């Protein structure tokens, strides 16, 4: 989309060893301008964004459209205010989810030449941020919708890596309770104002935050995925890339 204003390069995460320019968030989407833009908003959602801007426009750091869905990145101090605006002024009465994301690429086990988990899809090793960008490694994102006006949008906010503090949405949306508990145990975000951040899925004594990228998938560490050893070409299948649904990357056997 061309309405992305914040194309200034976001600073990479402090601990991520990346110093080259991070490409703008929606560069991949601009390249294909063949048919009508798949990301364009319909009139309903344009009105939603316009009304949000009128209410809390100064809080929006960056914006993008993703397949007809507005994504707004907000200042983190306005996280709860945004929920209040969405629920109060924009009729977004329905909370779909609150969750987090860790933009750091997962570290490879023991470097590139180590065996590790070779069955997992290889993700790019440089940091890039998705729609509407990010300033650091962690982001919280949430989706609210309206049951009457049939619109909805995704809100994002950067999370400070030191404090990991996020304003809680529980006072606005009662249903944020469980979502924030899940997010707390999976990412370690501390939701300020949440009534009781207890473990939801994991045992009480569990340590670590499993959905962070530096948390390995322990079952694959203990026993490497056996899928790679018995890969052989399918019968009557001459080419090398015989991966029919199974995870084989190019160069994995090299």
């Amino acid at each position, binding site marked *: 989309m061309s309405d992305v204003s914040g194309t200034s390069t976001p600073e990479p995460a402090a601990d991520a060893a990346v110093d080259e320019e991070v490409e703008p968030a929606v560069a991949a989407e601009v390249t294909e301008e063949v048919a009508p833009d798949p990301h364009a908003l319909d009139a309903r959602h344009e009105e939603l964004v316009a009304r949000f801007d009128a209410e809390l426009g100064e809080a929006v750091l960056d914006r993008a459209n993703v397949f007809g869905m507005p994504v707004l990145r907000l200042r983190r101090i306005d996280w709860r205010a945004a929920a209040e605006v969405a629920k109060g002024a924009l009729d977004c009465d329905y909370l779909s989810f609150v969750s987090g994301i860790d933009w750091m690429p997962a570290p490879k086990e023991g470097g590139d030449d180590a065996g590790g988990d070779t069955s997992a899809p290889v993700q790019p090793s440089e940091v890039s941020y998705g729609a509407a960008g990010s300033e650091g490694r962690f982001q919280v*994102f949430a989706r609210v919708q309206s049951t009457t006006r049939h619109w909805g949008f995704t809100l994002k906010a950067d999370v400070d890596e030191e404090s990991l503090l996020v304003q809680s949405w529980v006072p606005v949306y009662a*249903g944020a309770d469980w979502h924030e508990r899940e997010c707390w145990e999976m990412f370690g975000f501390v939701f300020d104002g949440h009534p009781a951040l*207890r473990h939801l899925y994991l045992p009480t004594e569990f340590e670590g935050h499993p959905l962070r990228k530096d948390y390995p998938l322990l079952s694959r560490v203990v026993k490497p995925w056996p899928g790679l050893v018995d890969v052989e070409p399918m019968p009557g299948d001459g080419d090398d890339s015989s991966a029919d649904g199974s995870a084989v990357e190019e160069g994995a056997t090299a």
Partner: protein
Amino acid sequence: MSTTNPPLPEFDIDPRAFRHLADAQVGVELDTGDMILNLGPQHPATHGTLRLVVRLDGERVISADPLIGYMHRGYEKLVEFRTYPQITTLINRIDWLSSFANEVPFIDAAEQLMGIQAPPRAQYIRTILTELSRIATFILFLGEMGLQVGALTPAFYGFRDREHVLNLIEAASGGRFHPNFNRIGGIKDDLPWGWVNETRRVMKLMFDACDTFEDLVAGNEIFEARTRSIGIIPAELGAAYGVSGSNLRASGVDWDLRRDGKPYLVYPDLDFKVWTHRDGDSFARYWVRLQETRESCRMVLQMLDQMPAGPIMAKVPRIIKVPEGEAWTETENPLGQMGYYVVSKGATGPFRVKIRSASFSNVSILPWLLRGVFVPDVITILASLYFILGDIDR
């Protein structure tokens, strides 16, 4: 056993106000202290392993705390270690009663990112199988809800009638519960010979089954007494909790993603009615699902008439790499809103997938909803919310 309960959103009736009722019967000098009752982890009303710690004052629930996670499989982590075609196998197991419907939004997200569109016939077959999953899920509910209020017979009818639909799904896809039938760009196979006529026949059976359940269960005086004005979910609070699907429509919210959401599959071509009920109680949830089962049967018959011929797979690269980007897709699943927020970085597998499952939010209202109800009503409320533990625990 000591459990600390979090402060909950305000409740207009203080359950402790009913204390005097118990006192009047047993005398004030007897200890009427609270009792903690564990419902589950294994309980017939919970479709899996849900543990509900209920604090009771006599027969009345003071607080209820669902402890989930007994079946947590960590799908959001696991999918980061798999390729896109492998993931459908996993997400089949989220809501295992309507597995096919789970696959659709994820495949849809991947297709959106790749800029692929499945051919019309594939879209039709997908929609038919989605609606068949809905019928299978609801028919079981319609019977099982009778079981929860003490009527054994409807449960057997439910299982018997669901089998017809599962046979259809099996005939088309090869799997009764976990079809894994969707591919990026289409579906695996075309429908087998004779399937369309058989489906028409089964839909007639399903209409009959709905009539049976309406007479046997919904029209039953005892059933009404057990479910009417029990477990009322106010519309605004339900929405704020993220309660979706039939549960929210039973509270009078006229919102169905098949009609009101971003158009997906062939729902824009179909003529169907969205059923709502004003009451928001357990009976309303039963009634709405009953009507939706019939509506789904009508939709399947419509689609069988309209289904075009043609290919079932679009042109798809041999190794599926999804371009960088983000996509959010949501569908109206039998249990409510199912959504996937897929973040791709151009690899063969996703970078992050947020799975928004319906039952998780539907059940998160339980601490509020169960306050102040009687113990036997806990069971009917749990049953009428109709959750699948795999859908909560993911």
